[in-house]
């Protein structure tokens, strides 16, 4: 069958667009890693961004973490009670929250709140030619805008994960103490005793990678946003979608790596 010319042309255009995008991503990443080690180093801006991005997410992540801890305990209590294993609940909660739920919930909320914000902010700077203005004055916008934000997100997510874990434990204790006579100190003792190095360190490292991915994706989407207000909206939306997908993908890969290294 003869393929119509228009189909060939469409495939050609899509291929060109695809490779153009790949080239753009490679250039952006290359520039990022180069600028990461090139002065001037914007320590003040990194601190500002880390504080702002982390602080912005505190209330939402706190409330969500508390609810997750509470609900998780309420849902698992009847099953554990039927097995006569309610004393294992703190251990189960601590391992599942520290290893998996804490980093995942935090990263997804962070991607939705902060990732979309970065995408929209840089997208709007792109549309109003502010990024071009930085370029033409020779002030290296990737160094100032991207490196600072990616370092900030990479630092903020692990810190927020520790916060999420602690608040989730509180939520869990709240639910458990309604069903069972248990003191806070006994509960925390059980929670902390059940955790070891291979639960905490991989979780923190995974959170760092989540933060890095969210920062890179959001900055890239904003930096190469299409012109117009539609482009800003698309940059914000795509930042969240791709970041969320990458979080699950990284999670899957990290689980395999951790299992390979520690089991």
């Amino acid at each position, binding site marked *: 069958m003869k393929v119509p010319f228009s189909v060939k042309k469409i495939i050609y255009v899509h291929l060109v667009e695809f490779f153009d995008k790949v080239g753009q991503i490679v250039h952006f990443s290359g520039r990022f890693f180069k600028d990461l080690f090139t002065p001037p180093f914007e320590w003040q801006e990194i601190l500002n961004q880390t504080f702002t991005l982390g602080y912005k997410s505190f209330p939402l992540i706190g409330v969500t973490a508390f609810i997750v801890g509470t609900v998780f305990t309420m849902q698992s209590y009847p099953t554990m009670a039927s097995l006569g294993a309610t004393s294992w609940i703190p251990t189960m909660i601590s391992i599942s929250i520290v290893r998996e739920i804490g980093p995942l919930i935090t990263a997804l909320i962070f991607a939705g709140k902060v990732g979309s914000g970065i995408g929209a902010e840089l997208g709007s700077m792109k549309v109003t030619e502010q990024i071009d203005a930085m370029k033409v004055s020779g*002030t290296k916008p990737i160094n*100032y805008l991207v490196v600072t934000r990616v370092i900030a997100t990479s630092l903020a997510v692990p810190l927020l994960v520790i916060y999420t874990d602690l608040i989730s434990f509180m939520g869990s204790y709240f639910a458990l103490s309604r069903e069972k006579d248990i003191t806070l100190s006994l509960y925390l003792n059980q929670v902390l005793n059940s955790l070891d190095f291979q639960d905490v360190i991989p979780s923190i490292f995974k959170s760092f990678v989540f933060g890095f991915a969210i920062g890179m994706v959001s900055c890239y989407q904003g930096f190469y946003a299409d012109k117009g207000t539609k482009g800003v909206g698309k940059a914000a939306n795509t930042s969240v979608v791709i970041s969320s997908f990458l979080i699950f993908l990284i999670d899957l890969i990290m689980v395999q790596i951790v299992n390979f290294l520690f089991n």
Partner: protein
Amino acid sequence: MKDNIVVEAENIKKSFGDNVVIKDISFNLKELEHLAVMGRSGSGKSVLIKSLVGLIVPDSGKLNVLGENILDMDDDDIDVIRRQVGYLFQGGALYDSMTVERNMKFPLRRHPDKPSESEIKDLVDETLENVGLLETKKKYPSELSGGMKKRIALARTLIMRPKIMLYDEPTTGLDMITSAEISELILKMREEYDISSIIITHDVSCVELTSDRVIILGEGTSLAEGTFEELSNSEDKDIRSYFTMIHKKK
């Protein structure tokens, strides 16, 4: 005006997909010369000016800025040229999360040969005073009018003491009085700082006031070149039509 050539463009071509924006354009800019580039919307004026600072890369041709072929340069080398070329964007492109003062300090603080903080402060005050807006230092761009934004944007580029200024439609979107003020400011700045400039504009009054030479672009190429007087009195009525506004006013 001196004989040294600071910008030299030869056979520049640029397309976006099937859309040929620049077919073949060649021109040069002499030291301390002020060149106006006119043309209808879509004639490739902005593409041309953006090529001069590496924001857009031409498909072919030769582009020398301050004696360097910028088409052969990587990002770091081109930044050295960019620091000597000021660019005034159509919308000003002020950093909206920064105050006017921080906008002004930003390029200096990020310069490899960063001046001291007291020198930066003096430069900011002096340049803001030159554009008559010293009192706006603590304001954010959202608190400024369109004309003020343009003047601050101009000050932000001039603070780097550029050898060449590129103006992308400096008076577009402004009322007649503010447009005239901006044109006069361009004239004042060129005298104050000894700079060569390329002005992309539709504003005939701005061209008449500020330019030594005019190029008219159309259909992706240079349609005519000459002084304001020569082109506005051209025998070709199509060329004259670019200046009809001022003829009507007279």
